């Protein structure tokens, strides 16, 4: 992605934020909403699940698609994930992280499982129009970092890593790549890729602590 495009993206985010003065409140309210929606799900109230869907489904489909690449598979992932959210809502414990984190983790796990069950090559059928090609996907992966709020600690700390480590971590989290796939794409021996990622994660934890 070019520097100009990135700057534009950030600019549009700033504009969005300044458009609403209560940006922080909004975030808090949203997470409280999700908490309440999960409680409703646990009681068997479908409106709770519907609220989660209305608020998050668009992003969840996009997150799943970055991993499984195909839109139809991403929707299948989200469908299964919502059924799991419904049946497991009673297990959500607020003391173990945010409702949002819990919901996204379910979608991510489901997407990763789908990816690992079929091989990436099967999923990425060359003639499939909706399939993201490798280069497009790598671009999306790096874009995820650029898109982070410019005040974000994660953005800053990822920025401090050297590029290969940053790429490795983003390929794993955003794209669902395995150690082996990352080593292949970065042209590194497997052991080296593993230890770079490990050291990158340590630096990131220290930076964000």
């Amino acid at each position, binding site marked *: 992605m070019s520097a100009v495009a990135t700057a534009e993206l950030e600019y549009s985010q700033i504009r969005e934020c300044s458009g609403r003065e209560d940006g922080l409140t909004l975030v808090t309210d949203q997470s409280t909403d999700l908490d309440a929606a999960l*409680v409703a799900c*646990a*009681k*068997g109230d*479908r409106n709770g*699940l*519907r609220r989660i*869907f209305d608020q998050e*489904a*668009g*992003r969840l*489909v*996009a*997150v799943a*698609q*970055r991993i499984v690449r195909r*839109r139809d598979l*991403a*929707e299948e992932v*989200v*469908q299964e994930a*919502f*059924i799991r959210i*419904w*049946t497991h809502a*009673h297990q959500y414990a607020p003391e*173990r*992280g*945010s409702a*949002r*984190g819990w919901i*996204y*983790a379910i979608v*991510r796990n489901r997407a*990763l499982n789908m990816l*690992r069950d079929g091989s990436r090559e099967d999923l990425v059928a060359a003639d499939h129009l909706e399939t993201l090609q490798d280069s497009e996907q790598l671009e999306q992966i790096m874009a*995820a*970092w650029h*898109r*982070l*709020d410019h005040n*974000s600690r*994660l*953005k800053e700390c990822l920025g401090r890593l050297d590029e290969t480590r940053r790429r490795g*971590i*983003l390929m*794993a*989290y*955003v794209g*669902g790549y*395995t*150690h082996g796939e990352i080593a292949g794409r970065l042209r590194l021996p497997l052991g080296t890729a593993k230890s770079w*990622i*490990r050291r990158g*994660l*340590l630096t*990131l*934890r220290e930076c*964000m602590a």
Partner: protein
Amino acid sequence: MKLIPENFSHIADEYVLGLLGDAEVAEVENEIERNAVLATAVAEARERFLPLDTTVDPAAVSPVLWDAIATRLPQQAPTEVPSIASVSPRVPIAENDNPRSGWRATAISAIAASLILAVGLVWSVTRTVEPLVVAVLVNEAGEVQAVVEDFGNDTASIRLLTDFAVPEDKTMQVWTLPSREMGPMSLGLLEDAHSARLSGSALPRPQDAQLYEITLEQAGGSPTGRPTGPILAKGFAKLAR
């Protein structure tokens, strides 16, 4: 990498990034259930990376996707919070098929309600006989339905705080669970769905957090001596002090 506390933060990171193998994932998920330190490390790792997901451009979602989800939703499974019938060691499966999933979720409001009511009740009864415990019973929606005061002298008072529609061939029966070994014990029937003072059942002295429950049983009371009908309300006792 071994699943020992020194490695927890790194393993949590790799778990959240999806870099662990199947066997390691299973090991982590198993350990999370009983290891709060690991669970916290995973939660922290999740929150650390979550902004990468929440800042994504949302996809345009077709309403068909919701319909596909809605048609596949199962009935809510029961949660692990037991009802009296489910912990009874002697009864066969109770014919108690009302969904109980809401009980746990309502616990918080029940606790709040019980604190408020317990304080009020203790105050109001101090001039007469002192109950040993007070239990506020709530329905599945978390609404307060009744209050039980157990005096510990084989007498308990049940005050209904809402109207119950009881069919003619049914009756409301009050239960408590003095201990798992003992199983659920009947305190008596509420004739005509009215508040009542029940006495005559010789039971151990009521304890803090003892479970009380009202079920709908056939007229004359449960034929098995154990709760068999749907639960109308339940709650845990607090020691009156």
